[in-house]
């Protein structure tokens, strides 16, 4: 029997360890990355005598037409665990059934199926990372990735490609989608599976050379985009998270000759997993109101202040440089994210994390729905039982991270002639210094938009008020204002009776 199969790309823009295609078109840079990834996929498919078919329209409108036109009998795609994705896919699967099309869905965007983790945590997603790690520790290893699709496999299939394929089904250009291009095609982050796999190799080479699997301490160099950075490729699925996982694991075991790597080796992947799990059953995950895990905080509503932050005009060079890098390149280091997120929300401006999340969604290449929303809630102390006392100073934190000031000079060229002593706080520089640097604060560069000491004093009081209402704590301890979550006290429940050493230890302590 002839099977006519359509594979629907959504996030998994790769041929290795594959199944699915992103519909969210946000900022131009994100779209550019996406289009480059599609081009790359198309190129790879061409080598296998096939092509990528880009069809415009809503899936519910497009698929019925294609099912008929192409006589489709099978539809495959990668599982999307996000609430919106699940809803959309349920509708598609139902419709496919009506057309007699068999659907096959595989879970490969995350290491584990989020439902499995939820089940193992007493049917609710873990709300602390510690708890999440404890559960993952007890799971078997993620499923091994499949190898790349081969010529032999494809030889058994035939794709009907018409002469005017490019016209009807080609990858659109940025202009066609209504975005203006700068004309400058040299971007820091090039989209696509080919680039992703090259970077993976370089990433592993560097780790092997350093032979150090500890969490790297941030240096000034870390702030700049790394040629081995992988986060955007994970987001779009150009790189399979399982391939990354197993490559790291195999390398570790080879170099360290130890039986199993610590969970901390997979930090980036596990955080991603954590947020996907937390979000999968919560359609309100990306907002405060109606979100059961989000603390209701009386954020200020101030569009002018938000715009200054988003456009890098706060008057704090550290913050402005970070937001400029974000806008220009689509990526910033995670500590830089902490700095600007803290500044916008609980640290200084007291503006809602939802606004910050939307800006990141537009500008940040690796901001997928679950991770972006979850991280913003985390960084603004709106969820996940975070202590709120540690505030990132928009002057001090920057200075400690990059004493040379080179990062500031690179992204805010106006300040390049400021001496290191004043480059993080140019408003404190004497007039003579400002004149010598050819950059007068208030004229050539904005004055600081707030007084950090005052704002942080105010805001710590606000956070304390909110949390003390939550925890019903009336005492004087700042740390005790944050309620502890019950799940911390109990050992993780599971379906198997075999306790690993970590769980045995947990049971020995009185909560």
């Amino acid at each position: 029997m002839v099977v006519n199969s359509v594979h629907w790309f959504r996030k998994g823009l790769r041929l290795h360890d594959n199944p699915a295609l992103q519909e969210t078109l946000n900022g131009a840079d994100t779209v550019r990355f996406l289009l480059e990834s599609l081009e790359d996929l198309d190129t790879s498919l061409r080598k296998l005598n096939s092509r990528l078919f880009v069809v415009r329209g809503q899936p519910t409108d497009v698929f019925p037409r294609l099912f008929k036109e192409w006589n489709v009998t099978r539809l495959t795609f990668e599982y999307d665990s996000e609430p919106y994705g699940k809803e959309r896919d349920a509708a598609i699967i139902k419709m496919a059934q009506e057309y007699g099309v068999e659907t096959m869905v595989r879970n490969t965007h995350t290491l584990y199926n989020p439902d499995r983790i939820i089940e193992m945590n007493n049917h609710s997603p873990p709300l602390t990372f510690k708890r999440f790690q404890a559960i993952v520790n007890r799971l078997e290893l993620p499923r091994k990735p499949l190898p790349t699709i081969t010529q032999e496999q494809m030889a058994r299939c035939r794709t009907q490609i018409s002469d005017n394929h490019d016209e009807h089904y080609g990858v659109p250009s940025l202009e066609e989608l209504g975005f203006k291009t700068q004309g400058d095609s040299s971007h820091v982050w090039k989209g696509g599976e080919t680039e992703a796999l090259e970077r993976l190799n370089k990433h592993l080479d560097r780790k092997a050379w350093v032979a150090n699997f500890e969490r790297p301490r941030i240096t000034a160099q870390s702030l700049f985009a790394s040629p081995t950075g992988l986060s955007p490729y994970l987001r779009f699925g150009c790189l399979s998270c399982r391939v990354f996982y197993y490559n790291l694991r195999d390398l570790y075991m080879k170099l360290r000759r130890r039986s199993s790597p610590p969970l901390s080796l997979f930090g980036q992947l596990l955080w991603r997993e954590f947020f996907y799990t937390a979000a999968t059953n919560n359609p309100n995950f990306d907002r405060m109101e109606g979100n059961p895990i989000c603390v209701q905080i009386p954020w200020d509503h101030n569009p002018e202040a938000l715009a200054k932050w988003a456009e890098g005009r706060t008057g704090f060079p550290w913050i402005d440089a970070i937001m400029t890098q974000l806008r220009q390149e689509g990526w910033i280091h995670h500590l830089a994210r902490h700095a600007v997120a803290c500044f916008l929300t609980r640290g200084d401006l007291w503006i809602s994390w939802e606004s910050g999340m939307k800006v990141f969604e537009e500008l940040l290449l690796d901001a997928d729905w679950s991770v972006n929303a979850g991280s913003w809630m985390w960084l603004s102390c709106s969820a996940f039982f975070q202590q709120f006392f540690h505030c990132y100073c928009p002057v001090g934190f920057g200075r400690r991270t990059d004493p040379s000031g080179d990062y500031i000079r690179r992204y805010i060229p106006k300040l390049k002639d400021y001496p290191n002593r004043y480059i993080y706080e140019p408003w404190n520089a004497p007039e003579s210094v400002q004149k010598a640097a050819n950059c007068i604060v208030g004229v050539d560069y904005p004055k600081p938009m707030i007084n950090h000491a005052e704002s942080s004093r105010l805001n710590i009081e606000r956070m304390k008020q909110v949390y003390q209402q939550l925890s019903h704590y009336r005492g004087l301890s700042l740390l005790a204002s944050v309620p502890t979550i019950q799940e911390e006290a109990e050992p993780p429940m599971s379906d198997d009776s075999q306790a690993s050493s970590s769980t045995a230890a947990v049971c020995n302590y009185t909560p």
Partner: protein
Amino acid sequence: MKRRLSRDREDSTSSCEGQTDSCKRVKQPEDSGDLLSNWARLPQEILLHIFQYLPLLDRAFASQVCRGWNQAFHMPELWRCFEFELNQPASSYLKATHPDLIKQIIKRHSNHLQYVSFKVDSSTESAEAACDILSQLVNCSLKTLGLISTARPSFMELPKSHFISALTVVFVNSKSLSSLKIDDTPVDDPSLKVLVANNSDTLKLLKMSSCPHVSPAGILCVADQCHGLRELALNYHLLSDELLLALSSEKHVHLEHLRIDVVSENPGQQFHTIKKSSWDAMVRHSPKFNLVMYFFLYEDEFGPFFRDEIPVTHLYFGRSVSKEVLGRVGMNCPRLVELVVCANGLRPLDEELIRIAERCQHLSAIGLGECEVSCSAFVEFVKMCGRRLSQLSIMEEVLIPDHKYSLDEIHWEVSKHLGRVWFPDMMPTW
């Protein structure tokens, strides 16, 4: 009388009819002993008891069921406590107390109000609305008044005289104010005099951090006259030796909490010192009092602080604090219960932590943000403090692995000494 009350339900009239219908239906059963039929004839005391469990909105709906329930809704006992929420849609996501409800309260219940607070957002209109209400509380005998800004301090944007006159209405008419929270407001010395003139016998709690128009003399007047004052919160510039001595005088009750915010207005600001003898007098007079100090200073402004022994119990450094100052804290803060450090330079705090463990025998809570401590020193610290550490909040980046412990091993060691499972605090990495 308008039926629409707070929040934005429009269909109140229809629900009223619906409810009355069910009331009528319920009266029909022949069995006179049927409990259901007595809903309409519940005694007021029982209704009151039930209503006290209901949030305001539910009570408001209940009040529209029938006249009896409406009467219960307006019983004075239900109007002792009220929180006015004043928000503008342009500046806040929160809903506000409905203006009609506010009018009703002022008209019918202002003389019932005893515990009142105002939560305002960052718009001047909200602060003005609060003052408006305050000025009308002429028949009020308030016990508690709280002016709380949930975002930026909008009370400070008001013309000072406008605010003061509204506030003094309450001061003059209440005469039995026990608790007053007026942080971040333009309250001044003369208005404090009015407060004292009318409420000196009853005032127990006064929170006035960041009130820039008050002088040390102004607050001294309060301490001198209000001998029942147990809790006080203010900024460091208002603290003086005289104030501490006044609070320690024989006539004064034992002080329970003193909260001091030390905030730098400009870099290089000079701060005055408080004599050790003044602190000693405080401790002698109120041996159990808690001294809570929050510092928001540049690193080089700590000169006058921690040179002598100081009875601080809860210490928060909201900006970077130097290793040297933390060393002085270890030497001079024997009563320390909680230490929270936002950030420090990037040199390990090993010695300083060990000294704190040695000399601060009451320390039960510690939080470290952007700092560095070697794993060995940290384990040593926890060993020395042992189980008295009920709060240990350390960011993961703080701990530097060394030859004895890696990051993965350290949490076992620490958990062992604490007697419970412990992990450092983490931040997401993308």
